[in-house]
């Protein structure tokens, strides 16, 4: 057993145990760690936002390089602070409208491309599926799955008769997918837990190598 002599390792280990103590029940030690975590993360976030966002993307181009167009994002950004002044708090709607409009404009074509077009490309049966029997089998399974799953998300008709059969088949596909995804993600989470336990048992306490 070779306990670490590093002060930072001790601090990190004690805070890790503090967060883990929530598994027992809510306690003052956890509350302290939680508040410290939130406080430090906000402070860190402010520093990151300033040095990675505001300074290089706004202050430098506007004040150091003299690009006047950057005054638009500056004004829009300042409008967010208007909510602290009730008389002009309505001005906050301008940056919000801009951000939501921009968000929708970016998100909708991107979603069409990544979710819909890619899905159609992957589902279409082409002559290439006859290359091998397993390719043919998976192409058919995928084709049926996509059709039935989309029917599950059809809200304009009551799921009765053939639609019920299709949507229930879709639910089976969904649950198989979720099951696989659950197992895969749990394994990834276990590796995170193992990483933390290794830190405590190896880096801090030195009981394992």
């Amino acid at each position: 057993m070779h306990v670490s002599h590093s002060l930072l390792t001790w601090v990190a280990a004690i805070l890790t145990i503090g967060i883990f103590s929530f598994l027992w029940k809510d306690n003052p030690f956890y509350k302290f760690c939680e508040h410290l975590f939130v406080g430090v993360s906000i402070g860190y976030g402010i520093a990151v936002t300033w040095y990675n966002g505001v300074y290089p993307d706004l202050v430098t181009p506007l004040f150091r390089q003299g690009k006047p167009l950057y005054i638009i994002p500056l004004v829009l950004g300042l409008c967010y602070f208007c909510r602290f002044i009730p008389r002009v708090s309505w001005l906050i709607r301008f940056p919000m409208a801009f951000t939501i409009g921009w968000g929708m404009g970016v998100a909708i074509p991107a979603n069409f491309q990544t979710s819909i077009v890619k899905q159609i490309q992957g589902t279409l049966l082409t002559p290439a599926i006859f290359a091998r029997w397993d390719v043919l089998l998976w192409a058919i399974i995928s084709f049926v799955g996509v059709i039935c799953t989309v029917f599950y998300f059809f809200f304009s008709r009551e799921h009765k008769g053939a639609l019920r059969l299709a949507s229930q088949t879709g639910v089976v596909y969904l649950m198989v997918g979720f099951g696989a995804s659950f197992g895969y993600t749990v394994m990834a989470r276990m590796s995170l837990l193992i990483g933390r336990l290794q830190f405590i048992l190896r880096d801090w306490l030195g009981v394992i190598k």
Partner: protein
Amino acid sequence: MIPFLILLLAAGPAAPPATDTAAPPPVQRLAAPAGVKAFDTPNDQGKSITLRWSAGDALAQAWLVERTGPEGPKVISTNAAGDIGYLDEDVKDRILYAYRIAAVAGADTVWSGPTPAVSSSPQVFNTARMNILIAMVVFFMLVVYYIETAKKGKNLFVRRIAGLDAVEEAVGRATEMGKPIIYVPGLGSVADLATIASLNILGEVAKKVAQYDSALLVPNRDPIVYTVAREMVKESYAKAGRPDAFKQDSVFFVTDQQFAFAAAVDGLMVREKPATNFFLGMFWAESLILAETGAQTGAIQIAGTDQVFQLPFFITACDYTLIGEELYAASAYLSREPLLLGSLKAQDYGKLLILVVVVVGSVLLLLSKVPAFSVFSHIAGFFNIN
């Protein structure tokens, strides 16, 4: 139709008989690469020239790419034998460049002739995305049509969605128990569709909370989502006729760090012991941490996300889960507002249209294997299928 076509085409034409092609191999000499083409890379933002060539013979062990521009000739790449293309992204727009390719085998190097001078430039319109433009135009036409239909007062049917029927019950339960409702609008930004859907649902939930005079807590991770959420809740209280009941501190920013946010919301759930938790929007690895803690406090939990990897956790730890598209449908379902119902209907018929495209496209693509219908193989180009 499709099963029949698959069976028919799977049989395929008979394989040609094998022939004896054993003949003495011809003596080969290293030849220059043939068909060297240099052209402006299509559908890009400029500063890129694409090169293609074909192997003159099988002897080449590598290829050299030489560029001649304002700075003079310069070898810019050495490609492996099978790599007969190059993307030159070290060029300036509207400057002329010529290229030569050399076949290399041992000490031998044979150069092709120079290509005609070519320059790069950005394209305003990406023709490879024509399919998306068409799909969006059709979809928006459907949206406008159904919104207008809904505005005229036509009854638009929406099937029952179990998770959403529980919202009323969940809010009522919180009122009876005198405990608050926690609504987490996800950890995504305002550019995420799930976050926008969640904010719409928040508006409806806040309206019910105001009517029932319950307490609502909305912790936020994103500062802009926080601002929007606060405005929506305030507006909902006003719509419910109770603007005075809105508490400024009920919608609050926590932190933008994922796990610090999860730790804070966990602490909030354990201390406030809410009657109902809503987790609707974008969630990542913190989904199970939140849902499991909420389940241990005994709250009714309604969750929903379009994150496929997080849905299983919500399904296992929550009472009701809105799966993907159900989240988008939720705000229309709850509010029954013509604008939202019209959009939901348009989405539904958009989905039907996609299914029709998939089925008809598959039939035509399968038919393209038959020589008489080979014209249908061009459909693959429209969908960018190789």
